[in-house]
């Protein structure tokens, strides 16, 4: 099977009115609410224990889902375990073909899928479309990656022995996914596991069961066997039950730090009679910093920082939340950032003119407001005078400067439209402060002296460092994504190493010497 080289699925050219109207038509045609079952093998149980609503209009119900019980989690794992032998022994080319067909299924439905992500998670149009594209990218990229992984890895050979290294799937993979990239991330983690021959139980975020349903539909439409991919909508307990299950070999998780650490602890607890060590592939939060040196081009830095901090209301793990700026340009940068933030329009995700959509839920809105109040008390606040739509979980975007060094605003992941700015003596002081953080996901540097760039690159601990651009928008195959330190297990989604987390290496050495003769 030779495939054309991987290329990213092109996002829609939304600067053209014709493309925009296609999306708006798809939103009009979206039939809601979706009914989302617990879907194990060929069994579907519908229910209404879990409801997702439009964050911009909480009265609008997007999906009505069954909430999986601990017994259903066990049943899903059992089904995945039963299907494992068959899927693991399916030739890699056939598995890859199934993923590519799933990609084609999604490609045919791009506007409708984007419209669903928009409704369920308030992803603005451009980001919703990008999420669909990234989902397709993961399918295409991991299908290819699995094929080259299937060729094994060359070993040293000497006369009289034959050495082979090949990679075998690990078994059942529990995929526990977030809501902020409601299609791309669950599909990416599932696709990586499936491409390498594992079977999957997907627990989508409780805020996004509708998108989770589409992920499973895509994979099944592509030809992944029913037992190999099950859907377990539910809240945290369903995920915890899944992770604890002794027959789960791998936990692929993207989400908050506390949950990720809990999963790591769960996996580390090896009960008597266990037959496998659980592996955790975890992507967690960050406290992402942008360094702005005195020679930075603020004309470029300001829009890039605004995009990094306020795109999707700051609800990306890659979003920027701190700016560390050289004292020589601090005041100017704060003034320009504040002015730019004043111009942001807070509004529904479906309005192309909105810059800042609502946050995901009431709890998130309360959290962001709490931090904004704290910031206002401790520092100088700019922005925040925006007109907010009456319904929906909207938060005004704010920029705060002059915070005390020990402020919680500078430490906690707020996951909302709040950006802090600190003045530093120089780039080295900025690097010191970043180095003091326990997390290391993304970062950006605005500077034009190549020697400064080299110095920061050498000192930066983050998984993804961006020079003279925004911290968000990593692309499959171009910016393998994932953090270090407490931000994650150092995995790189969308990179060539990612699949290695889903397999175990096996080496076979055969003695080819027989009676002194090499046979």
């Amino acid at each position, binding site marked *: 099977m030779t495939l054309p080289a991987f290329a990213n699925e*092109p*996002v829609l050219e939304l600067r053209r009115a014709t493309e925009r109207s296609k999306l708006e038509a798809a939103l009009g045609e979206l039939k809601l609410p979706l009914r989302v079952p617990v879907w194990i093998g060929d069994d579907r149980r519908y229910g209404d224990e879990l409801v997702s609503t439009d964050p911009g209009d909480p009265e609008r119900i997007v999906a009505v889902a069954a909430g999986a019980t601990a017994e259903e989690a066990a049943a899903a794992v059992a089904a995945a375990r039963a299907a494992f032998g068959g899927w693991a022994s399916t030739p890699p080319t056939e598995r890859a073909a199934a993923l590519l067909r799933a990609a084609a299924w999604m490609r045919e439905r791009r506007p409708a899928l984007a419209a669903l992500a928009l409704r369920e998670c308030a992803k603005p149009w451009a980001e919703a479309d990008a999420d669909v594209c990234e989902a397709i990218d993961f399918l295409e990229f991991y299908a290819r990656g699995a094929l080259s992984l299937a060729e094994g890895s060359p070993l040293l050979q000497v006369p009289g022995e034959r050495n082979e290294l090949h990679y075998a799937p690990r078994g059942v993979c529990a995929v526990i996914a977030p809501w902020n990239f409601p299609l791309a991330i669950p599909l990416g983690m599932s696709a990586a596991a499936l491409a390498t021959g594992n079977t999957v139980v997907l627990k989508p975020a409780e805020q996004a069961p509708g998108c989770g349903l589409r992920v499973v539909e895509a994979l099944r439409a592509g030809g992944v066997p029913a037992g190999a991919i099950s859907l377990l909508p539910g809240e945290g307990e369903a995920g915890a039950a899944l992770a604890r299950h002794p027959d789960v070999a791998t936990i692929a998780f993207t989400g908050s730090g506390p949950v990720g650490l809990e999963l790591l602890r769960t996996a580390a607890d090896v009960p008597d009679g266990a037959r496998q060590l659980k592996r955790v592939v975890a992507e967690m939060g960050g406290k992402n910093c942008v360094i702005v040196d*005195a020679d930075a081009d603020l004309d470029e830095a300001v829009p890039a920082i605004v995009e990094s901090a306020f795109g999707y209301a700051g609800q990306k793990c890659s979003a920027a939340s701190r700016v560390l700026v050289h004292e020589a340009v601090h005041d100017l940068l704060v003034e320009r950032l504040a*002015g*730019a933030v004043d111009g942001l329009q807070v509004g529904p995700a479906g*309005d192309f*003119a909105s810059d800042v959509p609502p946050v995901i839920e009431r709890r998130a809105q309360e959290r962001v407001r709490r931090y904004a109040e704290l910031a206002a008390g401790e520092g100088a606040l700019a922005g925040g005078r925006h007109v907010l739509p009456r319904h929906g979980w909207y938060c005004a975007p704010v920029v705060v400067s002059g915070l005390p060094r020990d402020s919680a605003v500078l430490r906690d992941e707020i996951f909302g439209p709040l950006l802090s700015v600190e003045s530093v003596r120089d780039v080295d002081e900025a690097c010191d402060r970043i180095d003091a953080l326990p997390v290391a996901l993304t970062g950006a540097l605005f500077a034009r*002296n190549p020697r400064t760039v080299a110095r920061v690159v050498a000192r930066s601990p983050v998984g993804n460092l961006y020079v003279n651009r925004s911290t968000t928008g990593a692309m499959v195959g171009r910016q393998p994504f994932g953090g270090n330190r407490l931000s994650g297990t150092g995995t790189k989604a969308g990179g060539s190493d990612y699949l290695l987390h889903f397999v175990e290496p096996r080496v076979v050495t055969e003695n080819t010497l027989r009676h002194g003769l090499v046979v």
Partner: protein
Amino acid sequence: MTKTLEREIQRVGSALSEAFPSRRGHPIKVLDERAMDLATQDAELRAALFRFVDVVPACRSLDDLATHLAGFLDEVSDQPPPLSAAMKMGNTKAGRAALGAAGAAGVRHMAHRFIVGDDPEDALATLKGLWREGIASSVDLLGEATVTAAEADRYAARCAAALDVLAPAYDAMKPDERLERDSSGPIARANLSVKVSALTPLLRPEAPERGQRDAAPRLRELLRRAARLNAHLHIDMESLDSREAVLELVLELLAEPEFAAAPSAGIVLQAYLRDSPETLDRVLEWVREHPRETPLTVRLVKGAYWDHEVVEARQHGWSVPVFERKADCDANFELLTRRLLEARPAVRVAIASHNLRSVSHAIACNRLLGGADSDLELQVLRGLGDDLGHALASAGLRVRSYCPVGDLVAGMAYLVRRLLENTANESFLADQAHGVPLEQLLAPPATA
């Protein structure tokens, strides 16, 4: 008509070419001596030079400048001897001061070729000199990007102040029938080019109406002032991301009853865009529906954001919106030229190009269509098209020089764009400077 047209193009082109100042005076040759020649030949060096020019205004001291220069030159793998010498200077404080001063002086020197003054007052001497030589102008106020409402207000205020300075200054100049009248009537003397991206921080490619709405009040004020002062206001076109917003904004405002008679105003059509013929359809349709006392001026340009458009499209996997072969773009330019000339008197036509073939084509085509020379305007860029401008003026044609005004900080992005153009291998000016024979320069675009 093809044969006759080609013959006429040859005739016009040869005559213009003879009116050019001597080769030694060619902009590339004088522009800057060796640096430009070196830069054209060596991509790494070219990159280092641009990055240096780009960062000059952000440097806080000569030492800082020199450190940057040394940093950029570090990345040039094959350093010619003068550069190695420069690198050595970067090792000592005194050396850095000298190097920084030399670098700053070099950039300032280059900038002054393209930028006629720090502000409109400062530019008047040059503008008056041009008028005396039979060349009109359009002043363009350079500025940093607009990211806040306050910045948009400041730019609008600078534009208003510029009109206040330019209008009386031009009123006081000696009459020049060629520069101020065509068969549609009088032509405004004072002429200001403005950028919508500077009039609003809210240009969003996927929501054009937002920037449009936000820029409208500022542009409306400028139109009123231009009408009052009898000046021309030209709205520049920028990258494709903002085209829809800019075009809609201008056509919408000019359709408002208060602007039916004045001011004289204009827009830009970019021939490098594959869909520019459709844009022209849209404009001509508007013109038919909104007859104006002073016809809308359409400035035809090739387009200055070619690299940006190609890179953006490639990064996103979009089809490239601009012609990728120079000949295709040149052919489209000629096609649009002809359509514009034929659309008169509903529009006024300004052909802005430094390509001798494109310019000769416009002049020849106009004559064969029976148009008067005075019903065609030719535009050149200050610093790049000065020789062509003078040759056209001495041939009795109406020429307008696009004159950027602004300080060094504001001017850097503009300067970098001009330098890029100037060192591009495919540039017409480069061909001309390197002695490509006239027949070849005037040959029709070889489209596939």
